[in-house]
């Protein structure tokens, strides 16, 4: 199998993994499990970058892949895990949407993503190296992740679950970026990564403080500021 063939295989595998982890995140209630799934998703994303790097013959992308692996596969899940341990709450109890409905929602969102990503796929299909074609057709996966991330943010009650949702959303954007344009310029990538890391840290810290102040950290209790 040629390098391109391998790359295409890896690409298919990693996008599949991304989609799967996103769906699983909707299904699982445990925050610790969510942290693990996020780590897997980070690794899958890194794999995706590697596959694209291979297809594009772009060494710089390998560096990017390393950064992605380090940040999304290791550091951020760790931050999340620490946050979970700090608040001592793991399970998401009363879900707003039960896992079954959530999964149905995921399929609907995937359909929507497929429908709306047509202009993106069409425009970017013909670019770059050989792998870029199939890469572009995987764009709906990224978009699905974005939407699933939003779904998580909207349906979960635990403060940290919202961070999980945000991270899935961010992974989705990264996926789209790599699939359509082989990633953004390195400087920008660095800045974006830094921002995401900082946001994760801040949310973790804030959720700790909220836990200290409120006792429990359900976002439903954050309703003092209203009109």
């Amino acid at each position, binding site marked *: 199998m040629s390098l391109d063939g391998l790359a295409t295989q890896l690409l298919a595998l990693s996008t599949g993994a991304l989609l799967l982890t996103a769906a699983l995140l909707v299904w699982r209630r445990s925050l610790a499990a969510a942290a693990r799934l996020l780590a897997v998703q980070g690794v899958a994303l890194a794999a995706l970058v590697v596959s694209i790097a291979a297809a594009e013959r772009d060494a710089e992308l390998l560096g990017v892949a390393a950064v992605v692996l380090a940040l999304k596969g290791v550091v951020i899940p760790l931050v999340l895990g620490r946050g979970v341990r700090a608040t001592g709450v793991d399970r998401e109890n009363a879900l707003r949407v039960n896992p079954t409905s959530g999964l149905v929602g995921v399929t609907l969102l995937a359909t929507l993503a497929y429908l*709306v990503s047509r*202009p*993106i796929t*069409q*425009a*970017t299909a*013909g*670019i*770059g190296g050989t792998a870029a074609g199939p890469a572009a057709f995987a764009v709906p996966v990224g978009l699905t992740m*974005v939407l699933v*991330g*939003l779904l998580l*943010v909207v349906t979960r009650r635990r*403060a940290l679950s*919202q*961070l999980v*949702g*945000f991270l899935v*959303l*961010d992974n989705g*954007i990264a996926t*789209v*970026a790599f699939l*359509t*344009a*082989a990633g*953004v*310029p390195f*400087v*920008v990538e660095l*800045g*974006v990564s*830094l*921002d995401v890391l*900082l*946001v994760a840290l*801040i*949310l973790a810290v*804030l*959720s700790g*403080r*909220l836990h200290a*102040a*409120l006792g429990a950290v359900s*976002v439903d209790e*954050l309703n*003092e*500021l209203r*009109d």
Partner: protein
Amino acid sequence: MDAIVLVPLLAPALLGAAAVVVPDRRVAAWSGVVDSVVVLAVGLVLLARRGPVPDLADGLLRADQLSAFMLTVIGAVGLTATWGGVDRAAGRATRAERRYAALVCVFLAAMSLAVLTDNLGVLWVAIEATTVATAFLVGHRGTRRSLEAAWKYVVLGSVGVAIALLGVVLLYAAGRSAGEATLSWTVLTSGRLPLDPGLVRVAVALAVLGFATKAGLAPMHSWLPDAHGQAPAPVSGLMSGVLLAVALYAILRVRAIADVVLGPGLMRGLLMTAGLGSLAVAAALILRQRDYKRLLAYSSIEHMGLLAVGAAIGGPLAMAAVLLHVLGHGLAKATAFVVAGRILAAEGTSRIQDVRGLLARRPALAVPFVVAVAALLGFPPFALFFTEVAIVVAGWQAGLGWAMAVVLVLLLAVFAGLVRATAAMVLGPAGERTGADASGPSRRGAGGPVTPLVLALCATAVVGFSALPVGAAIARAAGVVG
């Protein structure tokens, strides 16, 4: 000489570091002020400069006339807010105070970076960085409410702005598929790339939606009243006065790309919807508002809505009006928030119904508050009068009469609500106060320098009449994204 664009980024680093390291309260207090002065000075220098556009690191830093104008706005409003918030007390700065000062510097730096870059990715990074910098500023007071506000702010802000990142990414993809992988705004608006309209459509729409979060446009505005209501007054002033404007600046840049590739239709629809929606939300929630800091926050949503409407209209008059509005609103709103902060400190409550007869009891607070509100309501001679008139006229001239009619109705509702609330606070006899501390001595923080407020309000008053140099500068800046 182009290196001057580095100054607004390096100065805050130094000043922030100084605030953290030197444990003197005065350093902490004045670092933001000095930083604002530096930003303002650089902005003015850049505005005055002619010739080639300063450009560093291949467009990573680039200061065209619009950037220069925005930098000036950041400096001017920042000066008002930070100077107005200066606490004259000497002594050792606490950790919180030092962190506060440093974060204000970072905040200013992030905003400066946002307006000084040509790279849309960096622009996004800078805007997201403002969220990071202000998260702890919003939660500075550490109360349950401020933590709640900070949480909502960070979650809503990050999620919303992330959508903009998706847009930026797709723009990059569009550039790449057109043959040049670039995020340079200059290149994207040059018209020489055969960008795919379908893709750009999605990209710019997402980018606008994302940045609209930070600009406080409906329906992405939800974080704004909470954050502005809970943040310390100078920070509220900064956020309301310039942070929103910087986000709007990003929208203007994106809009320029859309104009080149797609024509004005899509952007007009999006921005008009967002603008009218914001005006409607603001009007509805101002009418029966019970908290005066939130009142000011909704007023910001209203003004951002108006700006979005102005941006939707486009053309030299409307765009110039938008920029002048940004300046006038920033100064007036920063002043209003600073004064609101002092009222809060003096009265111990931010509920409108608990503050009564302010003109009789505390004229030194009531008068600037009333003047600032009058400026925000668009009374002449304040600049907002000119801009509101110009936006409506330009809108009708652009064939958007129906939308302008809606704008007028909503402006009336906003006016009624703001006036009702302000009147309830400032008018009436001295003795009607219901809460505790009827007219006791002002608490700490109720006083503060008056000069910045006077300066800001005077500037707002005269700037509308200044064809030279302000008018010319605005026209040049508006020409950049015209």
